[in-house]
């Protein structure tokens, strides 16, 4: 009964989305206030029924209703409750329902927090989001309903959730990621609304910014969580593999980063409007493209949902309508955009534009590498693979150039800045960065290393220039505390996020250069040494978990005779799926991780294949990601988003 209610609620939600897609937009075009007023209640109704649908699916999982196909395929009576509920988004159909539900959540949020927005703008924004929702809910109902039943005969118990997914990571990573993916639809909707209305002054940038910043922050947090999860879950200590699905999340994030900066310039200076509109469309298009890549079966990935090309075709049609439609609208309406000020060729505007170019080229590089095998195959030229060696070779240099440029942009003034002025500002940070960069590999490693020099110099440069800019704010201040409280949350957010970039860069540089790893055969009593630590294998014993049995090893770690930690890696056998999984044991630290995993039992003397990793500064990767996400969230606490403002802009 409940699953049918869920399906019915979905149908009602589709109805409301469709009306939301049509009525308010028509009302905005004809300036019919009554029809535009429907937008808010429609958004509420859409949300309510998607919530009901979502709860019904959760209910089916919580009550082990294995007559529902989706529940039977992804759950089991022995599964712990938190995973039963997270299994809602553990497969294609349910995660799509999550997508639609989160979209309705954002739509509701926009309808609630838009007091300063003119009615026709709000109607258009909600209308566009309604169009997207209509597409996705149709896709759900037509090809991917999570409420299909196995009747009359249904399995007594479920097929269990993939052991890799039975983890805390599943509870947080997909929702965060989807909040980001879907959140970019708000920026998209604002851009489309601006193009439709012809009102292309910089006000839409001001309205758009907080929504875009939050979506960007969520996406960044989602990516960070994904990397962290893969690290401790997969057992090989990797944290990024340039897998198509990972790339699908990185691309909108890169374009999103360009977008949040472009929006800032459009709001403050009234320039780049056309470019910002294009970026908003581009970012969400990449979100949609990601959805296509992951669910159509077009690319191979460990992450991909087992989907078929029929569903892929439906999504492709959705893509053509949404992206094709918005790009056509852009091509026709963008010429009406006029800039409101001008800027010299050496100015903050110019530098931010150059940074945008870097970010977009990075995104296109990732896109090119991800799709190239498909392109070559479609042209009939055989099968090739594009993997980490390619991406690392191209991504790292451009990233370094971007980081260099970041420092310069911070010191540049709006409109016009002088080379001499820049030199004066940046001289000290440059010297500091070079010195630290050169010395570091000698102190930390065993001699000069170009990669470390580059990474550390560039990261220090970002931190030093940010610090200098911050310090300069106090030059004319009477009191430090007064100035501190005068600086806006936006500014603090920006600083935190930029420092986050440096922290990630340091993490990546150090962990890829100074990691050490050994795969060894160890019998009980054997000792090995890695990176000054001693590891002694004490043997393995059998343990039992909720829905698995495991061989658990005991390894004592000492540093110069002093005990550091005892680690317990496991080799798990999940009873239902009859599959095996490595559960690594990690001693986490701010400056290094010790990572142990068990392979196969070797021989009768209780020996095992053991992998020992020393991973320096790996946590900095995720710490930096966290900084960036927090920085993004911080910016929306700016008072100016809470005041009703006329949206004045600097004029040339």
């Amino acid at each position, binding site marked *: 009964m409940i699953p049918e209610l869920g399906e019915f609620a979905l149908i009602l939600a589709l109805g409301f989305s469709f009306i939301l897609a049509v009525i308010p937009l028509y009302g905005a075009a004809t300036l019919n206030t009554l029809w535009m007023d429907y937008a808010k209640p429609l958004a509420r109704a859409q949300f309510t029924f998607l919530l009901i649908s979502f709860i019904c699916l959760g209910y089916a999982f919580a009550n082990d209703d294995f007559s529902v196909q989706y529940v039977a395929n992804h759950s089991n009576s022995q599964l712990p409750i938190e995973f039963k509920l997270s299994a809602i988004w553990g497969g294609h159909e349910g995660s799509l329902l999550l997508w639609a539900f989160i979209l309705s959540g954002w739509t509701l949020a926009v309808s609630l927090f838009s007091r300063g927005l003119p009615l026709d703008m709000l109607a258009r924004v909600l209308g566009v989001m309604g169009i997207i929702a209509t597409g996705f809910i149709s896709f759900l109902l037509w090809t991917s309903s999570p409420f299909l039943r196995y009747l009359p005969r249904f399995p007594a118990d479920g097929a269990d959730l*993939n*052991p*890799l997914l039975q983890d805390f990571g599943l509870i947080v990573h997909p929702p965060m990621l989807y909040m980001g993916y879907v959140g970019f639809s708000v920026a998209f909707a604002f851009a489309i609304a601006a193009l439709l209305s012809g009102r292309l002054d910089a006000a839409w940038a001001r309205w758009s910014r907080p929504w875009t910043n939050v979506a960007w922050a969520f996406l960044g947090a989602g990516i960070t969580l994904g990397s962290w999860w893969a690290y401790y879950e*997969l*057992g*090989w200590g*990797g944290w990024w593999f340039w*897998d*198509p699905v990972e790339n699908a999340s990185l691309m909108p994030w890169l374009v999103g980063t360009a977008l949040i900066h472009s929006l800032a310039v459009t709001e403050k200076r009234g320039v780049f409007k056309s470019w910002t509109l294009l970026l908003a469309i581009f970012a969400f298009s990449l979100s949609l493209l990601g959805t296509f890549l992951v669910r159509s079966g077009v690319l*191979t*990935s*460990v992450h*991909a949902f*087992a989907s078929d090309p029929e569903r892929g075709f439906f999504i492709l049609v959705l893509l053509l309508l949404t992206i094709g439609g918005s790009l056509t609208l852009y091509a026709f309406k963008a010429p009406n955009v006029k*800039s409101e000020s*001008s*800027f*010299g*060729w050496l100015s903050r505007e*110019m530098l931010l*534009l*150059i940074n945008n*170019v*870097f970010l977009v*080229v990075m995104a*296109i*590089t990732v896109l*090119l*590498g991800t799709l*190239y095998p498909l392109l*070559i195959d479609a042209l009939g*030229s*055989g*099968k*090739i*693979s*594009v*993997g*980490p*060696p*390619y991406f690392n*070779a*191209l991504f790292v240099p*451009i990233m370094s150039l971007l980081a260099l440029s970041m420092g310069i942009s911070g010191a540049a003034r709006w409109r016009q800045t002088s080379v001499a002025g820049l030199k004066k500002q940046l001289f000290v940070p440059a010297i500091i960065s070079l010195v630290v960069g050169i010395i570091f590999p000698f102190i930390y490693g065993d001699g000069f290393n170009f990669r470390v020099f580059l990474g550390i110099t560039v990261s220090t440069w970002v931190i030093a220039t940010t610090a200098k800019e911050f310090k300069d704010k106090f030059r004319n201040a009477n009191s430090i505390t007064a100035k501190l409280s005068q600086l806006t949350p936006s500014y603090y957010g920006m600083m935190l996020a930029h420092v986050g970039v440096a922290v990630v860069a340091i993490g990546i540089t150090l962990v890829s250069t100074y990691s050490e790893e050994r*795969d*060894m*055969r160890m019998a009980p009593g054997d000792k090995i040494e890695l990176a000054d630590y001693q590891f002694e294998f004490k043997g393995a014993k059998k343990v039992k978990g909720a829905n698995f049995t495991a061989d658990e090893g005991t390894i004592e770690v000492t540093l110069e005779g002093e005990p550091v930690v005892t680690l317990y890696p496991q080799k798990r056998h999940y009873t239902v*799926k*009859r*599959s*095996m*999984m*490595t559960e*690594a044991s990690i001693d986490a630290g701010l400056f290094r991780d010790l990572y142990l*995993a068990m*392979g196969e039992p070797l021989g009768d003397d209780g020996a095992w*294949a*053991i*992998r020992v990793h020393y991973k320096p500064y790996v946590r900095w990767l995720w710490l930096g990601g966290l900084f960036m996400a927090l920085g993004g969230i911080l910016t929306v606490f700016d008072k100016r988003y809470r005041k009703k403002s006329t949206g004045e802009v600097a004029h*040339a």
Partner: protein
Amino acid sequence: MLRFFILVLLSITSAYAAIDTYEFKDKDKELRFHELSADMRCPKCQNQNLADSNAAIATDLKQKIYLMLEADKSDTEIVDYMVARYGDFVLYEPRFNAQNAVLWLGPGVLLLLGLIVVIWLTRSRNNKNAENTEQVPELDAKQAKALQQLLNKDKKS
């Protein structure tokens, strides 16, 4: 459909780390082994390199790499050996040839193009603005005096 299902099942069971305990006397060879097995793709898996995969074919290929390294073969020889049998698919670093030129050179070209376009657009924009300002007519003597009076009034207040 069934075959697909079996493939999916088989790949799910490869959910554990592949830990091979090859003993290398030469540290350099051990490093090369790690690099080669990381840069080559398992022909059967869902996008995994040889290092992380525990599929039978991946284990066999790693074994072969180990043997070839011990036999003092060069990296190029090992890579060529694998490609001759499994095609370019097995390389994660695509070869630099005419087919892949766009892949390797595209981003660089795009970057240069992007920067050039940005600079050119800004220059042409500034030139247009400069033209506009040049059209502002000069003040004649009477207007100049009036302006001066206004400015002086401003200074006093």
